[in-house]
């Protein structure tokens, strides 16, 4: 062991200037991630941040850690492969609501179900930011846009409940503007074994300027987290969507990453073929 050197939040920040619009909620998420990593004191080289495509998915390059900015919707399998191959790493998967719940929706269900020890952080702005303002699966039915004049008329997807139903082991909602709360939730999510899902309400000030009002709408969850998914689901389904905090903390065993380290002699694999 090296002598302990205290790592600061700024040690996890890269020098790259984000492409985000001024006021975008994702800046706060970036800050909270660096603070959470500092609190965990994991060396930057033992952390990998994996993402797909979207404004929010740009986050890996803004961090001083290993990163992978993959293709749209496939961040979870990318992170899953990395974690299974290298279980000793801390793997964080990050992205947007379009990336995670639309094009990547199937992977979301199966990542929850597989319960691998990774943390999935979705910056939910209820819109496709990068492609300039189309409805996402979490957009309200009456939100008017060029691609859906008058609104989609579709019921929004409920990520937290779906995560619970699919087997996620930790479910939380935070608001990007609450940097302290988001930091603390991320720390707990990373520490919690198994698949942790954190939905961060992160305003898109450009295409959803009304989301600036979220800061007065959010309120902390009044109760302590439950380990009963049914109770957690009822609570989430009946809240107003702005209830923040850790909503579920499961006790399910994570996907086993144990493996034999006896590298068998290669000739053992040929023997069954011998005549």
């Amino acid at each position, binding site marked *: 062991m090296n002598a302990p050197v205290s790592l600061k939040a700024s040690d996890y920040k890269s020098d*790259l200037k984000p492409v985000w619009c001024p006021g975008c909620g994702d800046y706060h998420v970036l800050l909270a991630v660096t603070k959470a990593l500092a609190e965990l004191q994991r*060396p*930057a*080289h*033992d*952390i*990998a941040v*994996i993402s797909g495509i979207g404004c929010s998915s740009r986050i*890996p*390059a803004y961090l*001083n*850690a*290993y*990163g*992978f*900015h*993959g*293709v749209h*919707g*496939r961040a*979870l*399998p*990318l*992170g*899953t*492969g*990395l*974690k*299974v*191959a*290298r279980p*000793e*790493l801390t793997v964080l998967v990050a992205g947007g609501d379009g990336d995670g719940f639309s094009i990547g929706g*199937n*992977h979301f*269900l*199966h990542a929850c179900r597989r319960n691998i020890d990774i943390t999935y952080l979705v910056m939910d702005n209820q819109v496709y930011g990068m492609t300039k303002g189309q409805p996402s699966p979490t957009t309200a039915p009456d939100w008017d846009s060029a691609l859906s004049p008058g609104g989609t008329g579709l019921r929004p997807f409920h990520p937290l409940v779906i995560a619970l139903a699919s087997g996620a082991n930790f479910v939380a909602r935070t608001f990007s503007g609450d940097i302290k709360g988001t930091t603390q939730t991320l720390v707990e999510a990373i520490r919690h074994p198994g698949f942790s899902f954190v939905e961060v309400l992160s305003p898109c000030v450009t295409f959803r300027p009304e989301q600036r009002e979220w800061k007065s709408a959010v309120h902390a969850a009044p109760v302590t987290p439950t380990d009963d998914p049914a109770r957690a689901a009822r609570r989430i389904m009946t809240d107003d969507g702005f209830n923040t905090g850790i909503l579920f903390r499961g006790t399910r065993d994570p996907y086993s*990453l144990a*493996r*034999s*380290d*006896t*590298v*068998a002699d*290669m000739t*053992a*694999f*040929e023997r069954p*073929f*011998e*005549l």
Partner: protein
Amino acid sequence: MTAGGLLLDAAGKAGLYGLQTRSVGPQIRGGEAAALLRLADWPVETHSGAFDLLLALDWSNFSRFAAEIKLDARSVVIADPVSGTVPEIVTAATQNIVELPIKEIADNISGGRVNMVALGLLCGAIGLHEADLIELIAGKLVAKGASAIEAGTACLHEGFQHSTRLDAVTAIGPERRQTGERRWLLTGNEAAGLGALRGGVRFAAAYPITPATEILEWLAPALARAGGTLVQAEDELASVNMIIGASYGGVPALTATSGPGLALMTESIGLATAAEVPIVVIDVMRGGPSTGIPTKSEQSDLNIAVHGLHGDAPHLVVAPVSLADCLFTTQWAVHLAEAMQAPAIVLSDQFLGQARMIVDRPADIAFVAARRRTENPDDDYARYALTPDGISPMSVPGVAGGQYTADGLAHAVSGTPSSAAEDHLAQLAKRRRKIDEFVYGDHWADIEGDGDFVIVTWGSTAAPVREAAEQARAHGLHIKTVAVRLLAPLKVAALAHELDGARRVLVVEQNETGQFHRYLRSLCDLPADTRAVHHPGPLSVTPDEVLGEILKEHSL
């Protein structure tokens, strides 16, 4: 089906060579099925011509198999009268119908089974020793107990007794092997799995698909024993990204699929090209397009494998030139992908993947995963540094100071996204350079014979081409065969050298449009007298057919 498998086992134990394929009806389980075997005292690698012997336990839906089971006047057909009348399609081909009460014989033995009687008949007809067969069967039936062994032995014995009625069949065995000569009995899918493991693959992601699943099922326990892992993915979009993730973490990784899965993976294979992450994707080709014919072979994924990625995306495409070569080619693919930090697609096919074959033990080869890594990156480490050979030292998570973000966005040498023309050009050129200038050695093709008549082929059609060329040589013709293993990047100069002075060239493959011929024409100046010989699956390209083409050309 077990009788067919046991016959091949018995032939192998007796020192013969042979292969077995299966043809099945549309039922998921059960239903009619045919085991097709070719046995010889020399290494056979493909079916050829008419079958010498057909034993039918059941004629229902025989017409489904008729096109694959060619018979001629010399063919001997064994039929049990209780199975109904011999189909006209059979009696039209041959008069040698031997009626034997197989079912009755089996029924007279307590616990007797028709396929064991049939196996005794066949082994007797081709001249294997009864005692050897009984020993083999006893070994296979140990778990089922003494009464099963007794019944099996009795059935085999009865079968052998009745085989005297089959003296029209040419006996070929038993042949004793030279001592020290080692042979294997395996499928190409198993060979590919072993090649992957030997090459250093320690992570696989799997989504089941016919006819590739056996590679994954072979790898699952093997990887576990070798300290690796296999994860079942939710789909191919996931499986390809899982292997990219694992490989980004420094662990050589592979997946296996067929055409529909490869189609789903293409976007992410492009990511592996751009982010320079080595991966191996085996495509065990089947009839296409769409769901096509899952259980039958076709070489129709060449286009998508070579050209299917968007953007200018140099990558590797290799194809085994024989069933045993699935081992070498897969192992080599792992080596190439890792050395060049690029995706490699291995084009196997249903025939190579699922046929069982007796082969000489493949030679051990030294190719393993050897990635150019950096363990001590300095302050200005740049993941995508422009090096003379285009290969940049790769840092992997856990290496202090090597942090970078791998990116599918166009990037600068550091990995930082960049849409600047100079960065795009430099990275495109670098990725092209590392693939084009790599030294592949002689493995780009397997070349046999010499002469001004050249047959160029690839994949599973190489076996019928080799056999046809051998026969043509017996006719006194001078023929060279070039089975191309490295499909992309195509070694244009080396191929031109092989074609130099060729008077006639045939390009042989199994697909409708002549994809390989078109590909060669797009890159090479083929001699004017080049002719494309191809047809789609499910019917295979046979040695007879190729020989016919050779003789036709030759007489021109």
